């Protein structure tokens, strides 16, 4: 695909960032009471989700290569 056209296309992958951030914050806040603990766990969970999703994307991309 033309790179210019690709850049103009709305990439739905960007939705993962706010989604993962909201999930991390809410989930962590339901686990602990102390603000520092909530934030630490939320940051860690955010990266866990993001890395996991990136790995899944990588696997799917590899499996669909040249299809």
């Amino acid at each position, binding site marked *: 695909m033309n790179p210019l056209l690709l850049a103009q296309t709305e990439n739905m992958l960007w939705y993962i960032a706010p*989604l993962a951030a*909201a999930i991390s914050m809410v989930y962590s*806040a*339901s686990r602990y*009471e102390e603000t520092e603990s909530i934030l630490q766990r939320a940051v860690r969970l955010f990266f866990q989700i993001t890395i996991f999703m990136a790995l899944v994307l990588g696997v799917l991309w590899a499996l669909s290569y040249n299809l």
Partner: protein
Amino acid sequence: MTAPAPEPKVDLKNRYLAALLSFLIPGAGQLYQRRHFKAGVFFCGIMLLSMWGMQMGDWKIMYRLEASSTSEAQRGHPFDPREDPHEPFNPPRDRAPSRTGTRSHWGYFAQAPVGIFTLISHLQERRYYSEKNIGAAVEGLSAEQAAEGFLFITDVARNDAGQFETRRVVVRGSLRRETRDGEFGREEIAIFTGETDAGVPVEFLTSSQIQLDAPIAADSRRYLSCPVNDIDAVPTRSGEFHGWIDRGWFDRFLVPPDALTIERLHYNLGKKLTLAEVFTWIAGMLNVLVIWDALAGPAYGYRRRPFDDGDQTGSTKSTEPAAAGATPSASASAPASAEVKS
């Protein structure tokens, strides 16, 4: 070996009331319990996901009953909007919508834990399926309002092929309601004043036989159809106006969409519609955790401890599970720090 420092107590106040408040508005229960940071996190996180999802889905994705694939509106009308989805037109519906043929929209059960939207969608469902939600005639129009649509004009003279030619003109303007003396006494009519999409001014009288769509529906357009007379005083064989006026925000917000509206949503949004639904599902599921937090306190305890979540190092060193004589799993299993005052 020193004893672990006791964890601060969390005052849950009336926890059942707090849970109810959190169901109604995410974080409201925590606010009542004076847990302000968590209240803010829950409110912002869940409302962001819910509202964003619903906005992406054009505010039409939260409904309990899914309409059947063929609606009354689709049958027997000269226009099939699916032929040209960029210029949609739903024929006005003159009967109250029926629950016959509807089926459960399963995604709703994931969305439902966000109570404020659940209650509104229930209210809107009742209004939508009410017997009062039927089409109206000219009296359904307000004194003056913006309108647009398609004007179909059939010329009085035959064309070269010997047929009466019908032209379709896109018009935008306003509809003004008036009472005048007609052939059979006083009658109410509406006058359209506006211009075509080519910028040509146009004015015409609608007959009193306006068919106006029911007031409550998911579509932001309230459709109307009527025969028209005196199009700019040009003699015409016949004319019809098929257009729409704006539907009030509360008459469409979280109202169950009919089959045609759902089809159009799929056409216009594609996979983004699924993404929008996923956002609202996740928001609903997260609010279950929020309700539980208001009811029973934080799930793992006041603060993070070593070995929580498989963390081998622990980020805070306030307590040692071994010293407390409790396994991490045991300490994580109950909201030990919650002090319940109900």
